């Protein structure tokens, strides 16, 4: 039976970052991907964070398929009265190279990343689903089982980069079952428009792009958010809600998406666009408190499979790439020191993560999932209030401003008691400090 130093399961950002770094570090690497080619099973908004990729491939900008650099970020609160209240941040420095964030199309980007992995010396095999992990009598992971005939393959270490569903770890007893309460379901469409039309609608030119993050009652009281990103000649639009909420109500995900697309603030931006793909994906949004065991005898878990998502800042792919890189660096250092890939030695992976932004950010927001789960009104009452208050203030109708102010505050008091307001403020501060 063939044996490798490391088998990487999955060719998303985490798996590719790990396989690339390992191959460059001189280890023999087999990467298995179930898709026809890398990227055909993967879904993301998608925003690429240059910093995380630069630390792996410093000159990625020379060859990676990038759509637009993010020149402007908008944050919108939408509600069913067709209001849109928000802030925009456009900074000329975001349009100076080297750019910090890019929109990408994952099927294209992942294929490019995989080419770099192959060039670095890893063996990449697609169209192969890993169905289980092989263990020795002591319980150490020693390889993987694939669906192919004689499909068992051995390795000194297996990196699980198998994505949000994390079936392999669960079935091998390495982690508890994933809970609906910790996962968000996102549905997305890619809408094509002529480049000139798109640039005129978003007030952009060259490679400039706009990112819109959306909250408010478009999720109909469920904990969730929406997004709208500009690619070169297409728009990615999507909406996601926590599955724990979604299973307790009667709106389908595609109805929610249709509601977002028809919102008065969104519809003119996508008017006349041609929809060329509809997709769906889970995002692990349980945060720090939902993290599984991250390593053990002969195995490591990276990216979405480990639950590395900063839901507050809508970041995931950078945590994925960084965790993949740190996992690989841990293995390379152990191999160079002649040490085995035992659980005790692989603890260095956790240490590396702890010293990085990955764990720092996950820890910082560890109270947020619980806050939103227990206080769903925060994403409903306040956005709605902001919209109503703005409309009151901006409607010039002869009423004195003091009366308007009184009316707004009275309305807030009607919707939430002073104690409730103070309680929310305190809980908010605790979760986000």
């Amino acid at each position, binding site marked *: 039976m063939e044996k490798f130093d490391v088998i990487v399961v999955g060719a998303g950002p985490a798996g590719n970052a790990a396989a690339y770094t390992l191959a460059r570090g001189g280890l023999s690497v087999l990467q298995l991907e*179930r*898709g*026809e080619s890398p*990227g*055909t*099973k*993967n*879904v993301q908004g*998608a925003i690429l964070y240059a910093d995380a990729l630069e630390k792996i491939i410093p000159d990625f900008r020379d060859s990676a398929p990038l759509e637009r650099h993010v020149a402007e970020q908008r944050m919108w609160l939408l509600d*069913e009265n067709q209001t849109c209240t928000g802030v925009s941040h456009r900074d000329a420095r975001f349009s100076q190279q080297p750019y910090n964030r890019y929109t990408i*199309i*994952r*099927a*294209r980007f*992942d294929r490019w990343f995989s080419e770099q992995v192959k060039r670095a010396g890893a063996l990449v095999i*697609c*169209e*192969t*689903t890993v*169905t289980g992990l092989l263990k020795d009598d002591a319980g150490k992971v020693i390889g993987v089982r*694939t*669906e*192919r005939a004689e499909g068992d393959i051995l390795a000194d270490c297996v990196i699980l980069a198998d994505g*949000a*569903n994390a*079936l392999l770890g669960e079935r091998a007893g390495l982690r508890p079952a994933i809970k*609906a309460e910790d*996962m968000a*379901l996102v549905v997305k*469409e*890619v809408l094509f428009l002529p480049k000139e039309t798109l640039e005129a609608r978003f007030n952009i030119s060259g490679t400039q792009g706009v990112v819109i993050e959306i909250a408010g*009652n478009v999720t*109909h*009281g*469920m904990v969730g958010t929406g997004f709208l990103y500009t690619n070169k000649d*297409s728009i990615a639009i999507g909406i996601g809600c926590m*599955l724990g909420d*979604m*299973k*307790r*109500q*009667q*709106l*389908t*995900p*595609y*109805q*929610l*998406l*249709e*509601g977002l697309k028809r919102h008065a603030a969104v519809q003119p931006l996508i008017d006349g666009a041609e*929809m*060329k*793909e*509809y*997709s*769906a*994906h*889970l995002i692990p949004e349980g945060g720090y408190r939902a993290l599984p065991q991250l390593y053990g005898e002969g195995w490591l878990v990276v990216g979405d499979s480990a639950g590395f998502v900063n839901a507050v800042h809508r970041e995931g792919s950078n945590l994925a790439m960084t965790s993949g890189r740190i996992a690989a660096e841990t293995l390379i250092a152990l191999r160079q020191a002649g040490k085995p890939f035992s659980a005790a030695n692989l603890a260095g992976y956790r240490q590396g993560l702890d010293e990085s932004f990955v764990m720092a950010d996950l820890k910082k927001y560890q109270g947020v999932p619980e806050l939103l789960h227990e206080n769903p009104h925060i994403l*409903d009452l306040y956005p709605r209030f902001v919209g109503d208050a703005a409309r009151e203030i901006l409607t010039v109708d002869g009423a004195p401003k003091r009366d308007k102010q009184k009316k707004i505050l009275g309305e807030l008091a009607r919707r939430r008691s002073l104690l409730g307001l103070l309680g929310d403020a305190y809980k908010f501060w605790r979760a986000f400090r």
Partner: protein
Amino acid sequence: MNMLAEPLLPSVNVEEKLFQDRYRVDVGRPHIKLRDAAVCTACAAKPCTVCCPAGCWRAVEGGGIDLVVDGCLECGTCRLVCDEANVDWNYPRGGFGILFKFG
């Protein structure tokens, strides 16, 4: 939950959306199965019929479930929302299933 808002949202034919997607269907080898059809019939809530983003799960007359996985987007939602753990969920064989053009 704001149930009153429901009528405000349009009904959507998800098949029209899925028509834009590329698949290589593994004919005769569905990757998702019911463990026990009777459990679905006895289930009143049927969250799978609401949450599945591809509309693969349909309630049928008599209280049962009709599951057709050809349009599956392989997200894993049905497995997680089923309180009865009645979903036998696997990824399709390598190369089969949804093939995202953009992702």
